[in-house]
């Protein structure tokens, strides 16, 4: 399948809406593990993004440029930990789709793999550290593997989202080692990492936005 700049903008619009619904839940997770602001931060960031989507990006056709603006806007609005992490992800993604107005299966795969690479480079976290990487790395691994097998992005991405969900859920059983909750020790057990949760939501929303485009 191919997606164009409209679809990409539509995806980010859906993220904006999704975050407004989920922000309290994300803050709640962060209150248990960190400083309680993750939902607030995501909301501030994507509200700023929404402003760009509604104005500056309204007629933008270059998918890469859209991602760059989203990344910069998000980062400038929030700072925080997720700011550099997601911004670097989207910037890295933008790099591999430079100048593209439509994204085919291969570009989409490359985009998300670059996204995950960006987050990992920026944060230097490893699987098991109880961060968003626990969602993103398994998702990327499956995406790569499945896409190499079938060449079908959407099928592969479906598997990736499932793997991401399992990765996210696995954070419940992990001790924190990165970020604010890393000093919690045993007390970090039993709670899903907020960044792992928001990362899963970013992935899953991409899937649902594609499916709605396909009419599923």
């Amino acid at each position: 399948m191919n997606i164009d700049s409209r679809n990409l903008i539509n995806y980010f619009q859906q993220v904006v809406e999704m975050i407004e619904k989920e922000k309290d839940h994300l803050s709640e997770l962060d209150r248990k593990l960190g400083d309680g602001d993750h939902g607030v931060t995501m909301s501030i960031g994507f509200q700023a993004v929404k402003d760009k989507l509604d104005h500056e990006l309204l007629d933008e056709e270059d998918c890469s440029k859209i991602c760059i603006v989203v990344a910069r806007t998000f980062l400038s609005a929030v700072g925080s930990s997720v700011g550099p992490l997601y911004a670097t992800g989207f910037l890295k993604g933008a790099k591999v789709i430079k100048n593209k107005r439509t994204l085919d299966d291969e570009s989409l795969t490359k985009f998300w793999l670059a996204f995950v690479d960006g987050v990992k480079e920026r944060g230097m976290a490893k699987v098991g550290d109880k961060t968003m990487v626990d969602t993103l790395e398994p998702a990327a691994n499956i995406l790569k593997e499945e896409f190499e097998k079938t060449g079908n992005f959407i099928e592969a991405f479906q598997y990736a989202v499932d793997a991401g969900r399992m990765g996210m859920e696995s954070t419940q059983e992990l001790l924190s080692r990165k970020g604010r909750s890393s000093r919690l020790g045993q007390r970090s057990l039993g709670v899903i990492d907020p960044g792992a949760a928001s990362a899963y939501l970013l992935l899953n929303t991409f899937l649902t936005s594609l499916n709605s485009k396909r009419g599923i």
Partner: protein
Amino acid sequence: MKKLVNNPIKAVDEMIEGYVKAYPNYIKTVGENLRALVTAKETKENKVGVIIGGGAGHEPGFMGYIGTGFADGVPVGNIFASPPPDPILDITKEIDKGAGVIYLYGNYQGDIMNFGMAADLADLEADIRVETVRVTDDVVSAPKDRLEERRGIAGSFFVYKAAGAAADLGYSLDHVVRIANKANDSTRSMGVGLSPCSLPQTGEPSFELADHEMEIGLGVHGEPGLYKGEIRPAESIVNELMEHILADMPISRGEKVAVLVNGLGSTPQMELYIMFRSVAKILEDQGIIIYRSYVGNYLTSLEMGGCSVSLMKLDDELTTMIDHPADCAMFVQK
């Protein structure tokens, strides 16, 4: 929780608007960027630029410490969130006087990433040399063999003050960095939480404590600490904090320290002095000399209840730094 705010989303911006209006002799913004605050005073040519910073919600930290003898600029993040690279970079360019710039902040992932990006950009875009010192004073946040994982809490006041003094004395960037590192190595803190704060946007308490509970080792953003336990008399709490601090700190009889008993926001001065009294007792018993004391709200967490104790061991050099005058909107030392 009830708050004196207008639109919660605008709280940080409106705070800064108020701050800049209240102290025009001390503070200005870089261009129109409300989140990029710098000193309104003339700074000396060839002085090392000092940037301290982090999230909002810690007032008077950090924007209150812009001024002579202290910081030259403060990028302000959202509440409890690192500022993004833009304001850090804007300030870096504004305050660089050719001698380079030092970034000082608490050791948190968000700050590391954002200040790190800003430092890269300062080098790339403006060829400014930036050095970084991260504060790691909270003794309970990681064991001694993983010092570099410890978070920064109220003791950062000492580290920032030392660096600010060194820069004001005209020292080179390397020298300022050495002093800041020494200040950080010489500083230990530990806190106790009694009641949570709440973000204006959520209104939810940042953590839960039962009516008679306290949290020993609490972080400055409400991060959980060592354990929750029944509240005890002030003296007994101080004993526990001081035990952890002194066990971690290479200090012996006859040496001297600066002491900070820092309120987290809603704890009355009365209680801070009662805590200080017990700190002083323990130090006296151990033959450690209190050279200078700070008791009050130096680094808060909105309206959180509780306090922390910080000690900085003083050699001659750090004594000079801690004695150095400072003239900021929210902190003046003669």
